[in-house]
C-alpha cells in the first residue's frame, strides 16, 4: 500500500529559545500501518527530535498523551488520524500553563485531585480477610474508578478555566464520588463538608464538556449530580 501525506498545524514553544509560542505547519508522510494520531507524532519526532509531548502506554490507560486535537481534548493514542479534518491542529490542553510544545504543567490539576482525599478512609480495625462488598455495591464504583487522570475533562471545563484554584473540577469530583460511593469508606460526611463551598462543587454548571471529551466514556457530570443530591438530602 502507498504511503499517504497528512497536514498538521502544531503549537510550538520552547522557553529556552522562543520569545513566544507559534503554530508550525507540517506535512508528514505516513505508513499505512499508522492509524492513530500518536503514530503520526512518533513520525514527526523522528524528523524533528525537538517536538515535545508526553506519551507512554499508547493504549489509552496511562493518560499521558492528552492534548487539544482540532479544538477538542482527547488522547492522541486513541484518536484515528483518518477521523480528523486537515490540517490537524494540535495544541496543549487549554487552561493550564504550557511548559513546552504540547506539554502542560499539571500541578493545579493534581492539587485538586489530592484535595478530595483520594483514598479509602476506614478506621475500623481491618479484618484478617477482605472487607466484604456485594456485587451490587461494587457495581456502584463502575464508571468512577476507571479514571486515568488524563485531565481532558477538567481542562475542557470553563468553570475550571476560570477558577482552577477553587473549583475541584470534573476529574477531582468524579474521584470524590468514587470514594463516597464505596461501601468500605466511612468518611462520607467529611467528604461532603470538604465540598460544601460556593466554588469547590457548586461551580459546576452542567455544561457537560467533561462528558463529551472523556476518552474512557465516564460521566463526571452525573457523579457531580449525585454529590449535590447527597448534599441536599443531608440539609433537609
Amino acid at each position, binding site marked *: 500500500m502507498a504511503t499517504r501525506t497528512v497536514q498538521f498545524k502544531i503549537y510550538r514553544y520552547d522557553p529556552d529559545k522562543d520569545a513566544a509560542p507559534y503554530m508550525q505547519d507540517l506535512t508528514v508522510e505516513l505508513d499505512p500501518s499508522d492509524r492513530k494520531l500518536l503514530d503520526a507524532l512518533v513520525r514527526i519526532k523522528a524528523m524533528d527530535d525537538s517536538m515535545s509531548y508526553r506519551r507512554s502506554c499508547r493504549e489509552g490507560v496511562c493518560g499521558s498523551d492528552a492534548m487539544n486535537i482540532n479544538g477538542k481534548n482527547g488522547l492522541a493514542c486513541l484518536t484515528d488520524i483518518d477521523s480528523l479534518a486537515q490540517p490537524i491542529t494540535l495544541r496543549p490542553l487549554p487552561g493550564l500553563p504550557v511548559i513546552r510544545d504540547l506539554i502542560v504543567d499539571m500541578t493545579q490539576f493534581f492539587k485538586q485531585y489530592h484535595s478530595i482525599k*483520594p*483514598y479509602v478512609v476506614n478506621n475500623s480495625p481491618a479484618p484478617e480477610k*477482605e472487607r466484604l462488598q456485594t456485587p451490587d455495591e461494587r457495581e456502584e464504583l463502575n464508571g468512577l474508578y476507571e479514571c486515568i487522570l488524563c485531565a481532558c475533562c477538567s481542562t475542557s471545563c470553563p468553570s475550571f478555566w476560570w477558577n482552577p484554584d477553587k473549583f475541584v473540577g470534573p476529574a477531582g469530583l468524579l474521584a470524590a464520588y468514587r470514594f463516597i460511593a464505596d461501601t468500605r469508606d466511612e468518611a462520607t460526611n467529611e467528604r461532603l463538608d470538604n465540598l460544601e463551598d460556593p466554588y469547590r462543587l457548586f461551580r459546576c454548571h452542567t455544561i457537560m464538556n467533561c462528558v463529551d471529551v472523556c476518552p474512557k466514556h465516564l460521566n463526571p457530570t452525573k457523579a457531580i449530580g449525585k454529590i449535590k443530591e447527597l448534599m441536599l438530602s443531608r440539609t433537609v
Partner: protein
Amino acid sequence: MKVAKRTFDAVIVGAGGAGMRAAVQLAESGLKTAVISKVFPTRSHTVAAQGGVSASLGNSEPDHWHWHMYDTVKGSDWLGDQDAIEFMCRAAPQVVVELEHYGMPFDRTDEGKIYQRPFGGHMSNFGEKPVRRACAAADRTGHAMLHALYQRNVRANTQFFVEWLALDLLRAADGRVLGVIAMEMETGEVTVFQAKATLFATGGAGRIYYSSTNAFINTGDGVGMAARAGIPLEDMEFWQFHPTGVAGAGVLITEGVRGEGGILRNAGGERFMERYAPNAKDLASRDVVSRAMVTEINEGRGCGTGKDHVLLDITHLDADVINKRLPGIREISIQFAGVDPIKAPIPVVPTCHYQMGGIPTNYRGEVVVGGEAVAGFYAAGECACASVHGANRLGTNSLLDLLVFGKSSGESMIEYIKAQPAALQDIPQSEIDKSLARIDRLDNQKGGADVHETRLAMQRTMQNHAGVFRFKDMLAQGVDKILEIEKQVQQTGIKDKSKVWNTARTEALELENLIEVAKATIISANARTESRGAHVRDDAPDTPEHPNGRDDANWLKHTLWYRDGNRLEYKPVNLKPLSVETIALKTRAY
C-alpha cells in the same frame, strides 16, 4: 554543571507497583523516603496489566499456596529459586487482602469476596486442572492496583519526585550503594539523591524488541544503570512472548480472555491448542501457547491475507459476560483491531511482553552479587530477578511479584536503615562526574548516530535474532550485530539542545539503558545451548534423552552477564524451599 544534593533515608527509583508498595512500607514507618519517577506515578506501566493478581484465597473453590508454588516452579521450567517461590506464594493471600484494605476495587463473588478467574498454568492439586486463582478488577486489574497504591501513598504523605529521570547509581569504592543521580525533566537540572538505602523498581525493557506490548517508557533504566555500575544481570536470555498481542498493533489482550472461556483458532477454525496441551488447552503456560501459535503460522495455518496471525474467539460468550468481565478488551479490540469481539474473533500474535531476568536479588529484595548482599542496594518487580519466574512466568504472578517483593524489600530497607549510623558516607566525585559526562557528551555531540534509527536497528535485530524460536546461527550473528549497534549508541547525536523538557535527550539516555539489556539478552541466549521455558533453540530439540530440549545436567543454573568484557558466569538454582520438600525435576507438559 552545578549539582544539587538532597539526603534521604531511602530513595526509590520507579513508581510502578513494586516501587509504590515499597514506598507505602517505608513512608508509613516514618522514614524519610523519596520516590523518583520519570512519569506521574499512575502512568507507570503496571497500569496496563489486565487479567489479575494470583493468590490462593480459595474464594470460589479449594486452593492452596503449595499448589500455587508447584505451578510456579513448573511454569519456570525449574529455573526459579524454590525458596523465593515458596515465599511469594505463601505471602500472596496476605498482600492481596492488604491491597483490598487499601481500597482496591476488586470484582466480587455473590458472597462479597474477591472475584477470582482461571489463568494459564494455574492448577489445583499439583497440576490436575485449572483453578480460579487470579483476583481481578474486570480486565483493569493493573490500573485499579496502581491507583490504589498511589492513593495509599497520598495518605502516607510519600514524597514523590515526578518527571525526574534517574541517570546513574552511585557507589562507594567498597561497592556500597550511596544513592542515585537524577535529572529534573522540566529544567534539565541534575540532583544527587543521597540515601542509606536505594531501591530500583524501574520495571522492564520490552522496548528492546520491535513488537512489544510494553509502553514507550519501558526502557530498562534500572537494569542499564545497574549494569554500568558493575552489577551483573541474571537470566536475561528469558523473555516472555505473550500469546495474544493485537496483530500489527502489539497492544495486549489479557490471558483472562481465555480464562473467561476464549479459544484460539487457526485458519481452519480448529481449536489447535488441544493438540499441543491436551489437558490445559488454551490455558497452558504462555511459552507453550506462543510456540504453538508460531508453529501454526509457520506451517501455513495462519489467518488473514498474510496468514500471519491466529484468532482469539469469544463470540460464543454471552455479551453480558464480555461487557462485565472484559470491557477494556472489547474497547482495545475495537480501537486497535477494528473488531468488536462480541461479533468477530480478534487477530492476535505472540508479542514481547515480560523480562524474566534482571538484577539478581534474594527474596528479601537485597541485591546479591557473589553470594553477598550489596550494602544499601535493593531491587523489586520486573527489573529484579529473585528468581521466581525462572525461564517462564505464569500470568498474574507479575502483579503478585510487585506486591510481595515491593513489601519485603521495603521491610529489609527499614531494618537496614535503622542499623546504620546517622551520618551518610561521602559520595566520590568521580561517580558524579561519570554520570555528568554522559550528559555533556550529548550536549556537545555534533552530528552522530540518529537515536530513532539506532533504536529501530536494535529492535529489529532483537526481533529477528532472539524471538519466540531461536536459531544457533541467528543468535551468533545477532551478537555481532548488537555489538556493532552498541558502538552507534555510544555516539548518538541529538539536535534538540534545550534545557527544558528535552525528550530527545531523554530518549538518547534511555537508549543507553536499552542497549545494555539487549547485549545481556543476546549474549546470554547465545551461550545457553539448551531449550528451557521461553528460550527454545533449534539445536536443542525435543529428544528422549533431553525432553523438550532441556539439559539439566549442564544447564540447571542461572546465567550472570557482566557488562565488563561481556563476561558470563553461572550460579546454581536454589532447589531448596523454605519449609516444604523440593519440587523435584520433571518433564514439563500441560
